[in-house]
Structure formats: C-alpha cells, structure tokens
C-alpha cells in the first residue's frame, strides 16, 4: 500500500480495513547532519512551530530541531490547553490575538484535527472590587478590538448551570466572557507542527540534548549535543523552564524563575460543563475535556523547582477552590496529577527575540500561559531568525526591556495560571 501522506476520510477507511497497521510515521527520524542553516533547541510547541514557519514562510528548510526527550514531552504536553486572547495591554492583545487567529486556521493548514473548541471562557468576579477591575479589563480589550461581554450573575448561571453562582462563600457578582476562548488538543498541536515541518525538510531529532555551545567573537558557531557537535550560525532556543540553563551555557543572563505548575484531572463523566471557568479570586480554573474529564489547575507551586512534579499543598488548595465553585463535583474521583517546569518572567510576559550572542535567538518566559501562544511564538521567532531583526509584534517583548524598564506587566491577566 502506498504511504498515505495526509489524513482524509478515504485514508481512514483504507487504514481501518488494513487494521490500522499501515499508518506511516508522523515525521522522519533522521540522524543529525554535521551542519545546518538553523538549529532550533526544544521540541515543544514553540520550537516546532518555529521550525515549521522557518520552512513554510521563509523557505529556510535546512533546519534541525533538537529535543532532549520526546516531542511535546515538556509543558506543551502537560498543559490544560486553554486558549484565549483577553490579556490587558495592547502589545499583549496584538500578540495573543495573532495567535488565536492562527489557531483558528491551523487544523486546516496542518491537516490535523486540533479539536479547537471555542466554547467561551468566563472570568469570574467574586467581589465588588473584582467587578470594577474586570469591567475595566474587559472594556480595555474591547477598545483594542477583542470581542467580549459582561455578564450579570443570572446570565452567568444561565451559561454555566453547574456553577454555584449564588451559594458560594464569595458569590459571583458578574463575569466577563470571551466567546472565542476555549481549548485545543495539545498533542495534536505538537504533532501537527512536527509533521508539517518534517514534510518541508526539517530534521526532527529526539533524544538529543544540547550540552553546550561553541561561541567565538561573540557569534555562535556550533552546538554540542549527546549525539555529536552540529555546526550552525543560527540557533533558536525554545526550552521553557530550562531557558536559564541554556542561557548560562551560552554566557548570558535571563530574568526567569523556574517553578512547577500542576494540573489535575478527574475521571471522565458525561458532559456537565461546556465553558472554561476561571476565578482570579477563588483562584482556580476548570474545563471539561472532550473525553469527559474535568481538567483543573490553579497557581504555581510556591518555590523554585526543576523537579517536574507537583507538591501536595498547592494541589489541595486548587481542589478546594474548585469545590468552592462546583460543590457538585465533590464526589468525582481524581485520576491523574502532574507538573511542568514553567519559566516565569518578572512581568509575566514572554521574551521573544535576539540575545546578547550574535546568531542566537530566544523564545521563553511564557511561564504558565504559553500554549495559547504557540502559533504566534513560532511565527515571530521564525521571522526574527529569518530577518535577523525582531518582528514588529515581538519588539515589545525583547530581552532589552529589563534594562530599559519598558515592562509589559500582565501579572493580573496571567493571574490564575493558564
């Protein structure tokens, strides 16, 4: 049987008849070549999207993507998959809405079902002061062109029957809702970009850990890995929680802190929740996956960690907050809990652009909320690498802002971490 290159109804039928034994590998697994035009480090969504857009938009195809573990095994495969573009400042709005718009066309572009489900996201106000702050927030982004609505408590109850709107200790006083927000399938995002990049000629090399750089005259010349030295004069780094480790190897400083962020899911149940709910004050968020599991999270763990596992006290806090909002979920059994190493920046905004080393570019600092930004992060890093000049949307997010003081302080909008 010829190797099918795409997924179609016909392919599905053929493969079903063949017992699903004929599906090809999603991407090639070549041995690393001695040299590439560009090396991307990190096989999470941001690295994969960068490699894909380098090849698809900029015609740069002699590219290697090096991943120390497996594709999507970092935060991209560990997150709670919420997408939205309701941050506060115009720079962020431009960035995150660019991303959401790319997501809206991405299943088609990558020919893979990303299960983008724009079910709507509600941010709850649980006090009079929350009402004032959230109305300001929602007005601000409407001025910036992001559609969102203010809901009174009765309307919140109509949108979310399972929510204990009036009974909870801090009853819901209102909410603002972005209907285009929702969830998408994280693995499919990683696999779709990986396949797309691979088909365009990018070498995706797993089990390949970068352990150092060759730098002379402040210019990167090669990367050292456990699978040999690879020569290149352009390196893009997208390693999330491990960004400082690689920056230290390259000899520059970053303003990041690596922390654990946890998520937890319940046993699958019938559809009971068809909105994403998030309360900055009660401090937790929840959505129901297409498989029926309740997917939950709250704030990051309280101290620095590269452990990639969660601690008990924040897990207890998160679950308590969910039950405050949804007492009826109290008898759900929890199935799994896990953690990822997130790279928190001082203003909870990302860093995208050049580094002090010539030929070295970075995409990091997404912290607890970079899944929604994968298409944009990849697009902007690819453009910055291709033109050796920050993409206009990425300019406000340059590393230099920590010297000039032009921070993009999204602490409040990043709030409950997702």
């Amino acid at each position, binding site marked *: 049987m010829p190797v099918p290159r795409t997924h179609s109804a016909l392919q599905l039928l053929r493969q079903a008849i063949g017992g699903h034994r004929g599906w090809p590998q999603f991407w090639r697994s070549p041995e690393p070549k001695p040299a590439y035009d560009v090396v991307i480090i990190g096989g999470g969504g941001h690295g994969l999207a960068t490699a894909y857009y380098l090849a698809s938009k900029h015609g740069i195809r002699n590219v290697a993507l090096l991943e120390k573990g497996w594709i999507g095994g970092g935060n991209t495969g560990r997150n709670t998959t919420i997408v939205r573009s309701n941050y506060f400042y115009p720079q962020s709005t431009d960035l995150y809405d660019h991303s959401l718009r790319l997501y809206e066309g991405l299943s088609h572009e990558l020919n893979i079902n990303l299960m983008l489900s724009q079910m709507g996201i509600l941010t709850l106000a649980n006090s009079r002061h929350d009402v004032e702050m959230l109305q300001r927030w929602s007005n601000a982004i409407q001025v910036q062109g992001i559609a969102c609505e203010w809901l009174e408590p009765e309307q919140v109850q109509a949108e979310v029957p399972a929510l204990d709107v009036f009974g909870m200790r801090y009853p819901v006083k209102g909410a603002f809702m972005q209907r285009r927000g929702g969830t998408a399938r994280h693995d499919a995002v990683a696999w779709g970009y990986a396949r797309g990049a691979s088909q365009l000629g990018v070498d995706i090399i797993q089990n390949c850990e970068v352990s150092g750089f060759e730098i002379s005259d402040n210019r990167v010349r090669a990367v050292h890995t456990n699978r040999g030295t690879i020569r290149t004069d352009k390196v893009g780094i997208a390693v999330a929680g491990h960004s400082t480790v690689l920056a230290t190897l390259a000899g520059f*400083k970053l303003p990041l802190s*690596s922390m654990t962020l946890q998520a937890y899911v319940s046993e699958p149940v019938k559809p009971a929740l068809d909105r994403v709910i998030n309360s900055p004050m009660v401090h937790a968020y929840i959505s129901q996956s297409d498989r029926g599991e309740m997917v939950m999270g709250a704030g990051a763990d*309280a*101290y620095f960690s590269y*452990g990639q596992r969660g*601690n008990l006290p924040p897990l207890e806090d998160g679950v308590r907050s969910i039950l405050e909002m949804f007492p009826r979920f109290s008898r759900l059994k929890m199935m799994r809990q896990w953690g990822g190493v997130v790279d928190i920046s001082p203003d909870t905004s990302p860093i995208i652009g050049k580094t002090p080393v010539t030929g070295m570019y970075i995409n990091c600092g997404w912290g607890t909320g970079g899944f929604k930004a994968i298409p944009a992060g990849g697009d902007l890093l690819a453009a910055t690498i291709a033109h050796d000049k920050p993409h206009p949307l990425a300019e406000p997010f340059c590393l230099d802002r*920590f010297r000039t003081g032009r921070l993009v302080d999204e602490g409040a909008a990043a709030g409950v971490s997702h």
Partner: protein
Amino acid sequence: MLQIDCPWCGRRDEDEFTCGGQSHIERPALGCSDEQWGDYLFARINPKGLSLERWRHTYGCRQWFNMARDTVSHRILAIYGMTDPVPVLPEARA
C-alpha cells in the same frame, strides 16, 4: 511536602513558609549603569541544582532566614542566618 527547620520555631510544614527568592543579591552603587541596575532587579541565577534562597516563617515567627536547597530533589541542604556567609555544603558537590 517539605518540612522546614525554622531556626526559631523548629520543624514545621512548608505551607507555613514563604520563599522570598534568590539570596545574597547585592545592591549596586547608585551611579551604576542601566544594565547593572536591570541585572540587580531582574537577572536571576535560577539554578538547576543548588539554590541559595531567602525564606520567611510567615505563619509563625515571621522571621527571615537563608536556605540552601536542591531545585531538582527539593532536598534542604542547610539553613543559616540572613547575614551569615554561605556554609560549606558537602552534599552539593554535583
């Protein structure tokens, strides 16, 4: 769950404490460059492994102290006073 030996109160659960970030950061002279000031405010070692941190017993005696801790295993290697020098850490050679 970490159990932390507060120098004043003894062993308590981690949720009584607050981690106050990297320790031993020195404030540069006021005439320093923007770059030095930016580094002082924002650049962090963020180590994978041995980390020297300030902690406070927030829901206890409210005193600050220093801790040497491994950020992968979370193991506490030493607890020492706010103005003390970094103690010798035999376990942290790796």
